């Protein structure tokens, strides 16, 4: 067991301003696309205009005669790469696996010339019939070996079918979530520059260590020959965590033309090959006693992946954790279609899965005549409902109670469709949230200088989470100094290797390594009589052994989301009047940046509930609404009153900071709380997101 460092804790828990805040507000913070090496040329990726088939010929010769054009590369003249990963094997085959897949790249002296060249490049294809629409009864649906994060595809206990057949109260409904796109404000961009046999890549990345390893392997060189630079990342939400084809394309192109290459994706291109949240079709069945106590839970999820690779969200996995019931089953099925490969988007699995489960719980509350808060409290498990493991800490009930108090839930009239202010129907809803508290091995270095300054070096990423700030606070406490004496360097693959900013495990993983390095440094300084040698003193820690040896617990953050909505009785226009979340996520290390994380997640959940939907065009095989004018994300006027609170949660089984990740839990449960509030307002149950006007006006 790891005892939390409490002695000398002074700065963890303090509301420090973001350490790079002034650089960001004055426009000085450099993002990847801001980098302009000398002799730069501009590349534009050329997307396939068929959804399935082969490229026969690309008219490279005509293109090279155009003014300003430096190169045009396709399968026919591209250098070969060493990879079996079909997604990253850019220009290595004539095959087209989805519409928009990069089939060529053109390079020119100016961005205008490059864009014009890409627009007019002639490509000859042989097109084949494509299949791009997900259906739950698709004949090619199959059970994957496992789902994202290594969870088993299917689990079960008892006899849920018999239990459901005999249950006094049953909810059996189908829920759907659409394809959604991460859409960080910063589009993906790569500046690739070869020096001799080494490659420098400026790229917004959530995982510089991972990107370095992948690039080294693809181009057949030692990892030390690749340098990924990513000091600031303009949002990722999962879409900058994996190595993506455009990065390979830029590196390959720079190698071919022998000059530094800038390849900046357009917003429209972000809708194709940077990942997205798979659409899901989910069936949830709940069997309960008349008082709401669950007898059976089943959750079956169907989703899509591309023909290139299998990516399956852990959609039904939260149903293995949330509620007690003796009979249970969860399944995942996937259909491989001629579509781009889906990937991680904020709380993959938990987010769409909890929309279904928490909507079904609301339906059960109504069927049993039990208050929705009380229903969840009644089904609280004593240990992991499937794993049987003890929870390291679980305060869902406290979140529900505290949220109900703050929101003013008491005395709520459960009848739907009876509250009206003028033309507006008013309703309230609640849903629970959960997200696992994970940790991965990391390394970190800390260096002391004679003047009392310290430098922490770690290949972590700050994608807007506040990692740079929180690691500064963690180091200051572990060193017994002030944050102003500590500089944290991150976002660079030359720094000590560290895991991805993803899975809400960044701070837990990196923070452990920083604490261990600082502890060791402090011990050595003490042994040396407290004096820093002239050349400084440096210590590196690696937490591989510590993380692998951690005790077995069910580790999760929990939360409760409350929403009040107003629905225009004539038009169906829905507005979220209030959104209030209460979370239990271990120790909160910086209330200022943490509040921003929770509120940001809840805001994205609001956006998911009301606005977000990528519409697949069955005929042409691409997403129709691939820009920000047609794919709506919440704007200022959509976000009226969003409040986040948290409980003081002591959990000795997590990490030296006692913290759980908070980057994703804010989005989990929000859409269900809003859909439940819409039902309370109108009597209309929306089981398929987003909550559009046409689904309400009947």
């Amino acid at each position, binding site marked *: 067991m790891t005892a939390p460092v409490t002695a000398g804790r002074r700065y963890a828990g303090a509301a420090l*301003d*973001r350490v*790079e*805040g*002034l*650089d*960001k*507000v*004055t*426009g*000085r913070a450099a*993002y990847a696309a*801001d980098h*302009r090496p000398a002799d730069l040329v501009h590349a534009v990726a*050329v997307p396939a*205009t068929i*959804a399935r*088939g082969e490229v026969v010929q690309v008219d490279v010769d005509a293109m090279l005669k*155009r003014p*300003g054009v430096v190169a045009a590369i396709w399968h026919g003249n591209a250098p070969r790469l060493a990879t079996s990963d079909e997604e990253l094997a850019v220009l290595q085959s004539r095959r087209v696996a989805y519409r928009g897949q990069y089939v*060529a790249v053109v390079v020119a002296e*100016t961005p*205008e010339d490059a864009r*014009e060249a*890409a*627009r*007019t*490049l*002639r*490509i000859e*294809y*042989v*097109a*084949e019939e494509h299949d791009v629409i997900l259906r739950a009864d698709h004949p090619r649906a199959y059970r994957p070996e496992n789902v994202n994060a290594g969870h088993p595809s299917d689990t079960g206990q008892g006899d849920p079918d018999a239990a459901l057949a005999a249950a006094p109260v049953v909810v059996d409904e189908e829920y759907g979530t659409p394809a959604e796109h991460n*859409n*960080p*404000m910063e*589009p993906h961009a790569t500046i690739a520059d070869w020096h001799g046999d080494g490659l420098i890549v400026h790229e917004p990345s959530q995982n510089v260590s991972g990107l370095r390893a992948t690039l080294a392997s693809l181009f057949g060189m030692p990892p030390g020959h690749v340098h990924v630079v990513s000091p*600031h990342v*303009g949002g990722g939400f999962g879409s900058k965590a994996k190595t993506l084809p455009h990065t390979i394309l830029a590196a390959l192109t720079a190698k071919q033309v022998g000059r530094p290459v800038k390849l900046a994706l357009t917003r429209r291109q972000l809708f194709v090959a940077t990942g997205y949240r798979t659409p899901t079709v989910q069936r949830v069945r709940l069997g309960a006693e008349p008082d709401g106590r669950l007898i059976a839970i089943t959750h079956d999820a169907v989703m899509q992946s591309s023909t290139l690779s299998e990516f399956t969200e852990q959609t039904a996995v939260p149903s293995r954790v949330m509620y007690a019931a003796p009979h249970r089953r969860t399944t995942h099925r996937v259909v491989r279609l001629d579509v781009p490969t889906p990937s991680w988007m904020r709380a993959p699995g938990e987010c769409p899965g909890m929309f279904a489960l928490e909507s079904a719980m609301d339906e059960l509350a109504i069927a049993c005549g039990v208050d929705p808060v009380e229903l969840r409290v009644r089904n609280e498990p004593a240990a992991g409902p499937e794993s049987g493991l003890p929870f390291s800490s679980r305060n869902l009930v406290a979140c529900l109670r505290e949220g109900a108090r703050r929101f003013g839930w008491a005395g709520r009239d459960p009848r739907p469709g009876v509250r009206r202010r003028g033309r507006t129907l008013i309703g309230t809803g609640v849903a629970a949230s959960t997200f696992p508290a994970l940790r991965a091995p990391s390394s970190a270095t800390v260096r002391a200088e004679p003047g009392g300054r310290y430098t922490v070096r770690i290949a972590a990423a700050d*994608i*807007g989470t506040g990692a740079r700030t929180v690691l500064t606070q963690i180091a200051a406490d572990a060193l017994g100094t002030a944050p102003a004496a500590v500089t944290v360097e991150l976002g660079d693959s030359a720094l000590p290797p560290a895991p991805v900013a993803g899975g809400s495990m960044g701070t837990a993983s990196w923070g452990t390594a920083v604490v261990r390095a600082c502890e060791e440094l402090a011990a050595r300084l003490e042994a040396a009589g407290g004096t820093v040698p002239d050349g400084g003193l440096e210590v590196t820690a690696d937490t591989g052994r510590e993380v692998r040896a951690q005790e077995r617990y069910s580790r999760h953050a929990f939360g409760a989301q409350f929403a009040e909505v107003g629905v225009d009785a004539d038009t169906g226009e829905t507005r979220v009047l209030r959104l209030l979340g209460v979370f239990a996520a271990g120790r909160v290390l910086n209330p200022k*940046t943490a509040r*921003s994380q929770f*509120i*940001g997640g*809840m*805001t994205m959940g609001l956006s998911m509930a009301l606005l977000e939907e990528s519409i697949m065009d069955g*005929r042409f*095989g691409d997403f129709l609404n691939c*820009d*920000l004018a047609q794919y709506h*994300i*919440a*704007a*200022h*006027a959509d*976000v*009226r009153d*969003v409040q986040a609170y948290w409980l003081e949660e002591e959990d000795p089984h997590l990490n030296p900071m006692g913290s759980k990740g908070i980057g994703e839990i804010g989005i989990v449960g929000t859409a269900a709380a809003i859909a439940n509030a819409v039902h309370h307002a109108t009597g209309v149950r929306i089981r398929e997101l987003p909550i559009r006007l046409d689904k309400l006006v009947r």
Partner: protein
Amino acid sequence: MRESWDSRERIAGRAGRVTGQANTSGDAAAPPPVGADLRISVNGAWHALTVDTRESLLDTLRDRLGLTGAKKGCDHGQCGACTVLIDGRRVLSCLTLTVSLDDESVTTVEGLGLPGAPHPLQRAFVEHDALQCGFCTPGQICSAVGVLAEAAEGRPSLVTHRDRAHPGGSAEPVITGALPLDEEEIRERMSGNLCRCGAYPGILAAIAEAARAGEGAR
């Protein structure tokens, strides 16, 4: 337009051998680039430039003048990350052709303040944690400076009370003198600047503070 639709139809409509431009809007190749000479003031310094007539102000700022504070979030005027000020009015620099700005004065986020001497809004954004990833932030701040100026000048918005915006029932909105900026006004006026991190409550608090203090409208 009809031609490009046909090309899309031909390619996707049936299996078989197809040829087409890489981009569905592909028409015949455009004529060769044309350059134009002009003079432009950016953050108080005059520059004599020869620009490509296809060049956006955003690209001129970023690629030619090295001012990378303004960001390219969509290049289509849909996100607001490229917002700068021209003579104090906010514009989307990605939709503004530089060739149209001869003799004009542009202010970017770099011109508002420095890390050691920030503009009141820049300081308020840090204090209220009105940013996370920071990518939309330069556009948010330039837009906020414009909003404060618009309110000070009395320019009504969609949510300005009708009696105020249309005194005496006038058909067109009327500029009547400084307007108060309540939360609804700020949200409405800032809705052209998207923030995917969801920093809107902090942004609102930062702008409201600057508005109360009477700072920041320049």
